[in-house]
């Protein structure tokens, strides 16, 4: 019967009737010999004719006289049931004993309120049920508060709800049945009895009847598919499409909210919106923001408002989202409820620490664009599949003004929705120690002012997803990314601008490269900071240089390209060589030995182990710069790479003959920037080999130069270097930086 039945209330009634017949037959045979009157009563769900495949049988045998043959007779009823594998709970009591028990134990009372005679003395059975209900009615002033304070764990919006004991489950429907029985003083089998008591209206009773049918159907399917008794609805127990999960979710929501209304009408529990006027009142934007500002306390009223359709003017379709299921690895709640939890969780998100970044948030106000973004961030999931962030952005642009947002605020909210996955996808899936990754992310964020709201939205989204989505592990990675983004987007760094310019230059350079695979590869792998500072034609030339070194296989390979510089008498020399410690110093030294004065230098991070440096040089004497000068430079560089000590000696000798033109105090400043590198600024009198000496100071301290810009004006050098330690981390130890500054001053 169970295997062939169509899941639902009809099957539950049929199973109940079948069981009635079997138990009655057993009881009538086994108890026939008893002298005193007896009755067998089905209690609980069985009494309400709602028996499920794995339900236990709750049996009451009432007899007012203790017959000596009773125990033996009972075995005749129970043993066959146990042998059949049924779970049977049984009580044998006299009528007064049962009434006493019902008074003292709420579970006995509630089970009896839905009781039903199976067989035996009809009068005895009816008296037990009637007296219990009548007594409960007399005690209603204490009983109703007790029933209304029943714990209701979980939420009807869980993707894996407890269909029996959880909020919105069978017990909520049972509670309304019990309340009705207590109010009317008569046994009841479904919540419609509450209409008589005035705690429900007819429409709500109809909604509940449908909800009850759906929940019974869902419980039947779960019990048929589960190996062991369970009442939790999971995707794998949903029976291969037998069950309409969306309707089941809606049924749980209906049961949950109608119960809250019933409790409210009975004076126990408050609803935020008067049910008599829900069709007339729509939530206004100010009222919505008041509820959001309440934080987690605003969740219950907002769930209620959404379920009642009060958000439809502000956010059309939100009611449907409340029960929309999009199961994913860590998500606990339906789409709409997840959005409500994120929006009401922004204040909690603001208090979260982010690893050891020390970024405890202040009590800065939460902006309206952020609140709207949190509320609507997953509304794009109304359609399945990828792209929900972009769909959500479109939605915000369509309806953002309804929330009282001005155009700039709508833009901000739309951007936050579009990029709400950017930070977690980058922090957990990309190398945030790679400057290019951070610069590209910065380009998408666009402005420093948006890092904080985007971060809060990320945390709120994670907290609203479930406990597995926000842990110290996540917080540490996200905190580090946020710090790097703030630095990248500050006015000095202009990280967003770097990424945009780099992208444009790269595209143009690739067009110029045509089908040349070597050149295209070199251009595609070039760092963003380098690309942003070049012209596309120069990028193409440089790509040829780096590709030449990479493919030569010679560790001493040098590729040089020379072109006219920005002013008369200057030259732009681009040099590619295999990266190694001290390379930049060797380049600077080789220029000095060749009679070339470095006026500007740009050093870029190596890619594929090939370093590229671009210098603007001029003659440091009146001698003209000829092809032989470049040949001498290449010979000097090669010699410097083979014998660094020899370079030092030759420079010292040359320096004796060429004194500095100006005198200025050497100044060294370091910035303890928490990004990918430490910035070191040096101001000093320009002279032969100055850049060489500064670069050697870095090399002696085992610091790598990732980027350098050296400019000489009126005989004074203004040089900036971005350096890291041997582990690739910025140098933050004040002692190390102090020693570095001392070394630079000594060499300069």
């Amino acid at each position, binding site marked *: 019967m169970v295997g062939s039945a169509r899941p639902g209330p009809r099957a539950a009634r049929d199973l109940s009737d079948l069981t009635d017949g079997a138990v009655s037959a057993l009881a009538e045979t086994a108890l026939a010999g008893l002298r005193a009157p007896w009755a067998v009563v089905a209690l609980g769900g069985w009494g309400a004719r709602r028996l499920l495949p794995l339900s236990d049988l709750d049996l009451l045998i009432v007899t007012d006289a203790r017959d000596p043959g009773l125990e033996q007779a009972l075995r005749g009823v129970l043993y066959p049931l146990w042998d059949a594998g049924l779970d049977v709970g049984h009580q044998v009591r006299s009528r007064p004993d049962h009434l006493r028990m019902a008074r003292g134990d709420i579970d006995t009372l509630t089970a009896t309120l839905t009781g039903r005679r199976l067989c035996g003395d009809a009068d005895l059975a009816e008296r037990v049920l009637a007296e219990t209900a009548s007594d409960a009615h007399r005690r209603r002033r204490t009983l109703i508060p007790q029933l209304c304070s029943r714990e209701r764990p979980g939420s009807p919006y869980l993707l894996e709800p407890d269909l029996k004991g959880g909020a919105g489950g069978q017990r909520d429907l049972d509670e309304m049945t019990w309340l009705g029985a207590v109010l009317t003083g008569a046994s009841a089998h479904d919540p419609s009895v509450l209409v008589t008591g005035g705690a429900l209206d007819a429409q709500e009773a109809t909604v509940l009847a449908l909800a009850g049918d759906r929940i019974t159907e869902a419980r039947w399917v779960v019990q048929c598919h589960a190996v062991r008794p369970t009442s939790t609805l999971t995707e794998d127990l949903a029976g291969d499409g037998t069950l309409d999960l969306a309707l089941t979710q809606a049924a749980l929501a209906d049961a949950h909210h109608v119960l809250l209304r019933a409790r409210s009408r009975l004076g126990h529990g408050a609803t935020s919106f008067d049910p008599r006027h829900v069709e007339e009142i729509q939530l206004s934007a100010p009222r919505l923001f008041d509820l959001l500002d309440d934080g987690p306390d605003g969740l219950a009223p907002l769930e209620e408002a959404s379920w009642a359709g009060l958000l439809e003017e502000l956010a059309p379709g939100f009611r449907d989202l409340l029960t929309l299921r999009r199961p994913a690895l860590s998500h606990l709640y339906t789409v709409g409820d997840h959005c409500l939890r994120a929006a009401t969780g922004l204040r909690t998100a603001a208090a979260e620490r982010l*690893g*050891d970044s020390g970024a405890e948030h202040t009590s800065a106000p939460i902006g309206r664009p952020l609140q709207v973004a949190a509320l609507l961030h997953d509304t794009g999931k109304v359609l399945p599949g990828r792209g929900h962030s972009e769909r959500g952005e479109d939605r915000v642009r369509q309806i953002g003004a309804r929330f009282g947002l001005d155009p700039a605020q709508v833009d901000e909210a739309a951007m936050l929705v579009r990029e709400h996955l950017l930070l977690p996808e980058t922090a*957990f*899936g*990309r*190398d*945030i*120690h790679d400057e290019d990754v951070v610069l590209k992310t910065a380009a998408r964020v666009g402005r420093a002012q948006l890092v904080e709201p985007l971060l809060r939205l990320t945390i709120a989204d994670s907290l609203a997803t479930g406990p597995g989505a926000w*842990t*110290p*592990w*996540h917080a*540490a*990675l996200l905190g580090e990314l946020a710090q790097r983004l703030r630095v990248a987007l500050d006015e000095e760094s202009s990280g967003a601008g770097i990424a945009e310019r780099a992208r444009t230059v790269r595209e143009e350079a690739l067009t110029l490269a045509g089908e040349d695979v070597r050149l295209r590869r070199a251009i595609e792998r070039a760092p963003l900071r380098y690309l942003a500072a070049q012209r596309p034609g120069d990028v193409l030339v440089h790509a040829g240089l780096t590709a030449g070194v990479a493919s030569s296989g010679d560790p001493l390979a040098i590729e040089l390209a020379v072109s006219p510089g920005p002013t008369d008498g200057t030259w732009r020399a681009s040099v590619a060589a295999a990266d190694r410690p001290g390379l930049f110093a060797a380049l600077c030294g080789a220029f000095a030995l060749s009679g070339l004065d470095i006026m500007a230098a740009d050093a870029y991070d190596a890619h594929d182990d090939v370093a590229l440096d671009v210098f603007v040089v001029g003659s440091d004497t009146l001698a003209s710069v000829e092809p032989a000068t470049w040949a001498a430079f290449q010979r000097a560089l090669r010699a410097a790479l083979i014998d660094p000590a020899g370079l030092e000696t030759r420079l010292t000798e040359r320096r004796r003959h060429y004194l500095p033109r100006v005198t200025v105090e050497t100044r060294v400043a370091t910035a303890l920037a928490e990004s990918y590198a430490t910035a070191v600024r040096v101001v000093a009198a320009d002279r032969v080999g100055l850049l060489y000496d500064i670069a050697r100071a870095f090399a002696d301290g085992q610091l790598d130069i990732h980027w350098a810009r050296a400019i000489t004006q009126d005989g004074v050098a203004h040089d900036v270097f971005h350096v890291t330690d041997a*582990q*690739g981390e910025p140098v933050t*130890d004040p*002692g190390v930086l102090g020693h570095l500054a001392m070394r630079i001053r000594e060499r300069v």
Partner: protein
Amino acid sequence: MKKIEAIIKPHVLDEVKAALQQLGVTGMTAYEVKGFGRQKGHTEVYRGSEYTVDFVPKTKIELVVDDDIAPKVEQAIIDAARTGKIGDGKVFTSTIESAVRIRTGERGPEAL
């Protein structure tokens, strides 16, 4: 049978997974962990004061494979997880005495 455990940087997990799938390895467990090696997490002394650097988020993967493909699996993880920067992590290999698939009762390599 060999159990291979690896501590890797979180952002290389997808590459490692893809590399293992190419070898026909489809079962793997991944954890979010935190730890320190030489990258951070040591106590420094500066001007007489001690300070401790915190743990770094990592991902740990575990898988059990047949003896004959264990070396290839180990190398695949190394190649996929290497970035060349400090903090790339480590791979450990140990011997497993037995394995059982709970659903079917298969034992030994058939359980993998």
